[in-house]
C-alpha cells in the first residue's frame, strides 16, 4: 500500500513537471545565431554583415587573388615552373575569365536579402539606414558591372527569389539574360540614385563613397559606349536578342554620361581628389601612389585594404614577386616579370615613341656605361612600374645581367644564377651572371625585369608569415581623368581630352603638353596601357575597343613586330619578349671593356602565342547552367 502511494506521488510529480507549455519549452532564443530583427537593430552589427559583403567583392586582378591574376596577355612573363603554361598555350579557352555563376548569384541573393532586411528594419536611425542601403546597392551594382564585363547581359535579379517546392515550378525562378545595355543602364542608374546618400569624403576609401559611385558610373558608361561604338567592327560578336552587343546609336549618350560622371569628381563635387604628386622623384612618386595609404594620398578612390600589424589580413603579392636576391623569404620571389613589349611602349620625354636603343644605325651594339642609361629620358612611370636592371628596392640593387660578352661577340655565362667562373685567360673566379638572372630558372627575372607596382618595401613584407598590407586600388583619380579624356575625345572635344590627359602625363614627367591635334585613338589606348598597367584593365580595355583579336592574333611576335609601330593601338603582342643586359669583357679595348650592351630575347620557355578568338569576347556560360535554365542563350561564336 505504502509502495503504491510512493509510486503514485512520483508519477504525479513527473506528470506535473512534464506539463510545461510547449511554447515555453520550445521557443528559446538561439544563442549562436542572431535573428534578423536583432541583427538589423544595431549599426555595429549591420556593419559587420556589410563587412562580409565588402570582402566578397569580385576583382579580376587583385592582391589576394594571387600574382597570376596580374600576369598573362604578354604584358609579363610568368617566372614560375607551374605557370609556364601561360606562355606555352596557343589560345584561351572560352571559359577563361568567367565567373563562378552559382557563387556569384548566391552573393547577389545575399545582397538582395541585405537590402530587403535593412529596408524592413525599424530600429536603425534613418541616416544610418540610408548609408547602409546605398552601400549595399553600390556593391550590387559593382558586381553586375563585373559580370557584364565578363559575360555580357546576365539575368538581372534585383529581389530575393523564393522557390516554392509545393508548386514545383522552376520556371518562376528561371530568369532570361537581360540585354547587355540593360545591365549597363542598371549600373548607371543605381549610381545616380545612391551617389548623394554616400559621404563625399576623400578619406573614405575602403567603403563606398560618392566618388566611388561616380567612378563606377564613369567606367561603366565608358565601357558601354565603346562597345556600342567599336562593336561595329566585329558584327559577329553580337546576339539577336541584344544579350551581347550594344547598338551603335547608343554610343554618344553613354559617352556623355561617362564624361558627366567623371567631371563631377574632377570638379570636386565628390571630395577633394587630386593626382598624387608628393615626392620630388617622379618615378618614386608614381610607385608611392600604390603604397601610400595615408590621408596624403588623395588619388585612391576605392581600395581593398589590408592590415598586417595584429590583424593578419595580408596578401602574398610581395612574397611572390620580390626580387630573388633581396628576398625576405629565401626561394620565394620573382614570379611576375614585365615584358619588353610593355617596356618599349613607355614613350620618351619629348612625347615620341622609340624602341629601347640596343643597336645603332649600322646594327652594331650600343655601349652603355651604366645598365640604367639605356632607359634614360623615358616616361617616369617606366621606373615606377617596372624594377629595371640595377634598380633599387629596399635599399639594395637588383642584380640582373645575363653574362659577359667577349671580344668576338660570344657570350660567356652560366645557366646557374650568380655562379662564379674563370673568365677566359684569367685565373680568379668572378661572378659571370646576375643573381637575379636572367637565366631560365623560375623566380629569376627571365624577361630582364621585375615588377615594381604594388611591391611593398616595408621590412618583412616579403615574408610568408607576415605578408604585405599594401592596398589594392579599385578606382583612382588618374583613371577618372583618362575616362574623361576618352569620353571627351569620342564626343569631339579633343581640346578637353588633352587637358585631362596632360594632368596625368605631367605627373609622369611628360611636361610638354599634348595639343588637341595630338589626341588620337592610339594615344588614348597607349595612355591607359602605361598608366594602368597591372591594375586589371588590359583585358577589358582591349575587349571593349574590340581590338583584342587583333593584338593577340595568334601569330608569333617577331623582333620586327616588337620594335615597330610602338604606341599604336593594334600592335601585335602575342609573346612576351625580354631585354637582357650583358657586360662587355674585352681587356684589350678599354673603350668598351666593362660597359653594358643589351639584346632583345624571347625567353626560351615561350613556345605558344596568344590567340584571342571572337568566342573569347564573352566568357562561356557553362552547359549545366544553360541546362538548368534553358532561357539563358549561349554566347556568340562558341
Amino acid at each position: 500500500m505504502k509502495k503504491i502511494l510512493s509510486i503514485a506521488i512520483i508519477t504525479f510529480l513527473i506528470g506535473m513537471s512534464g506539463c510545461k507549455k510547449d511554447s515555453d519549452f520550445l521557443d528559446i532564443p538561439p544563442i549562436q545565431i542572431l535573428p534578423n530583427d536583432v541583427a538589423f537593430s544595431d549599426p555595429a552589427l549591420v556593419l559587420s554583415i556589410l563587412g562580409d559583403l565588402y570582402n566578397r567583392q569580385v576583382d579580376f586582378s587583385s592582391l589576394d587573388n594571387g600574382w597570376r591574376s596580374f600576369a598573362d596577355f604578354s604584358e609579363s612573363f610568368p617566372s614560375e615552373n607551374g605557370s609556364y603554361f601561360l606562355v606555352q598555350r596557343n589560345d584561351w579557352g572560352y571559359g577563361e575569365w568567367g565567373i563562378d555563376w552559382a557563387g556569384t548569384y548566391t552573393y547577389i541573393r545575399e545582397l538582395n536579402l541585405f537590402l530587403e532586411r535593412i529596408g524592413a528594419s525599424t530600429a536603425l536611425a534613418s541616416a544610418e539606414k540610408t548609408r547602409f542601403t546605398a552601400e549595399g546597392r553600390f556593391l550590387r551594382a559593382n558586381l553586375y558591372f563585373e559580370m557584364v564585363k565578363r559575360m555580357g547581359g546576365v539575368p538581372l535579379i534585383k529581389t530575393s527569389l523564393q522557390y516554392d517546392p509545393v508548386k514545383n515550378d522552376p520556371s518562376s525562378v528561371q530568369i532570361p539574360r537581360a540585354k547587355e545595355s540593360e545591365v549597363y543602364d542598371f549600373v548607371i542608374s543605381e549610381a545616380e540614385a545612391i551617389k548623394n546618400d554616400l559621404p563625399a569624403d576623400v578619406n573614405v576609401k575602403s567603403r563606398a563613397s560618392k566618388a566611388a559611385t561616380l567612378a563606377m558610373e564613369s567606367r561603366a558608361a565608358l565601357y558601354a559606349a565603346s562597345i556600342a561604338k567599336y562593336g561595329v567592327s566585329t558584327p559577329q560578336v553580337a546576339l539577336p536578342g541584344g544579350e551581347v552587343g550594344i547598338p551603335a546609336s547608343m554610343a554618344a549618350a553613354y559617352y556623355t554620361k561617362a564624361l558627366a560622371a567623371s567631371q563631377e569628381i574632377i570638379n570636386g563635387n565628390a571630395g577633394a581628389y587630386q593626382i598624387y604628386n608628393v615626392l620630388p622623384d617622379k618615378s618614386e612618386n608614381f610607385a608611392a601612389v600604390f603604397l601610400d595609404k595615408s590621408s596624403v594620398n588623395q588619388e585612391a578612390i576605392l581600395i581593398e585594404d589590408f592590415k598586417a600589424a595584429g590583424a593578419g589580413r595580408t596578401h602574398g603579392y610581395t612574397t611572390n614577386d620580390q626580387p630573388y636576391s633581396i628576398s625576405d623569404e629565401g626561394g620565394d620571389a620573382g614570379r611576375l616579370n614585365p615584358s619588353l613589349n610593355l617596356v618599349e611602349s613607355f614613350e620618351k620625354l619629348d612625347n615620341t615613341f622609340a624602341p629601347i636603343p640596343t643597336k645603332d644605325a649600322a646594327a652594331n651594339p650600343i655601349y652603355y656605361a651604366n645598365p640604367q642609361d639605356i632607359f634614360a629620358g623615358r616616361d617616369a612611370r617606366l621606373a615606377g612600374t617596372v624594377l629595371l636592371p640595377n634598380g633599387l628596392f629596399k635599399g639594395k640593387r637588383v642584380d640582373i645581367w645575363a653574362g659577359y660578352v667577349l671580344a668576338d661577340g660570344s657570350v660567356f655565362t652560366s645557366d646557374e644564377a650568380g655562379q662564379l667562373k674563370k673568365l677566359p685567360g684569367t685565373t680568379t673566379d668572378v661572378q659571370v651572371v646576375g643573381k637575379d638572372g636572367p637565366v631560365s630558372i623560375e623566380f629569376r627575372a627571365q624577361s630582364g625585369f621585375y615588377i615594381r607596382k604594388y611591391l611593398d618595401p616595408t621590412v618583412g613584407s616579403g615574408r610568408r608569415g607576415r605578408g604585405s598590407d599594401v592596398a589594392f586600388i579599385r578606382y583612382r583619380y588618374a583613371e577618372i581623368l583618362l575616362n574623361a579624356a576618352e569620353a571627351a575625345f569620342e564626343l569631339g572635344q579633343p581640346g578637353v581630352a588633352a587637358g585631362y590627359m596632360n594632368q596625368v602625363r605631367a605627373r609622369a614627367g611628360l611636361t610638354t603638353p599634348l595639343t588637341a591635334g595630338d589626341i588620337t585613338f592610339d594615344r588614348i589606348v597607349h595612355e591607359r596601357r602605361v598608366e594602368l598597367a597591372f591594375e586589371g584593365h588590359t583585358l577589358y580595355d582591349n575587349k571593349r575597343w574590340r581590338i583584342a583579336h587583333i593584338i593577340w592574333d595568334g601569330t608569333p611576335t617577331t623582333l620586327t613586330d616588337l620594335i615597330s609601330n610602338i604606341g599604336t593601338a593594334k600592335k601585335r603582342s602575342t609573346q612576351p619578349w625580354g631585354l637582357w643586359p650583358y657586360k662587355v669583357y674585352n681587356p684589350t679595348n678599354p673603350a668598351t671593356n666593362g660597359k653594358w650592351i643589351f639584346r632583345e630575347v624571347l625567353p626560351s620557355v615561350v613556345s605558344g602565342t596568344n590567340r584571342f578568338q571572337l568566342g573569347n569576347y564573352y566568357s562561356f556560360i557553362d552547359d549545366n547552367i544553360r541546362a538548368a535554365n534553358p532561357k539563358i542563350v549561349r554566347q556568340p561564336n562558341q
Partner: protein
Amino acid sequence: MKVISHYILLIAICASVASCKKDNYDAPESKLSGRIVYKGEPIGVENFQVPYELYQFGFGKVGAIGSSFGQDGSFSAKLFDGQYKLIIPNGQGPFKWKQTSAGDPDSVVINLHGSQTLDLDVTPYYMIRTPQLTAAGGKVSATFKIEKIVVDATAKPIENVVLYINKTQFVSGGDNIERAEIAGSAITDPNNVSLQVNIPATIPTQNYVFARIGLKIEGIEDRIFSPVQKNYFLIPSMCMLCN
C-alpha cells in the same frame, strides 16, 4: 595457422567471385566518323579549332558531347547506339552551315546503329583548287587557284592568303616555323596565285617540311586550308642523309 590461411583463401575467393559481377555498361562501341565536305571534296581547317556538338535527348539535362574537327576536316566519336543531333555552332568554320529561320544552327539527325560514316555537307566561301607545293633551292613554292563558291549577297572578300610551313604535320597560324602572306587585295588573278617561303634552319636538321595554304575570309575567324603536303628538299651539307 593452416586453418586461418584456409579461411583467408576462402574469403578471398568468395570476394573475388562476388566482385566479378557485371557492374557497368559496356564501353560505347559504335563509331561515328566522317569529314566536312563540299560536293564530296574534303575541307581543310585548323586542328582543334572548329568544333561540332552532338546532342542526345531524353536523358534529363541537355548538354553537348563536343569535340572538334581534325586539320583534314575529319571527325570521329565512339557512341552508344541511339538518335543524335549534330550541329556546328554559329560562327565556327570557314563555311556556311545550314541555319534555321531563327538563326540557330540547323541539326543533322543521326540514327546510329553500329558504326557509320557520315560526311557533312557545308558551303565554303572559297575553295583552294589544285595546290602545287614544291620545295627547291631552300624555298617552298606554292601555286594554286582560288574559287569563289559563295557569290550571293552574303559573299565575303578574301582578307589574305598565307603559305605556312612547319617541322611537324600540324600546320596552321599557330603552328608554323615560317610563313608568307599575300593580301586579298593584292591577288589580281585568282586562277593563278603563287607564294614562296624560305625554309629556315631547323633543329634537329630535317630534309623535309610540311606545308599548306590557309585562306582568311574577311569577318570569318577560321581559315580554310589546302591539304597538308610533306615536301622533301636537299640540304647541301647533309646530302648523305638525303634519299
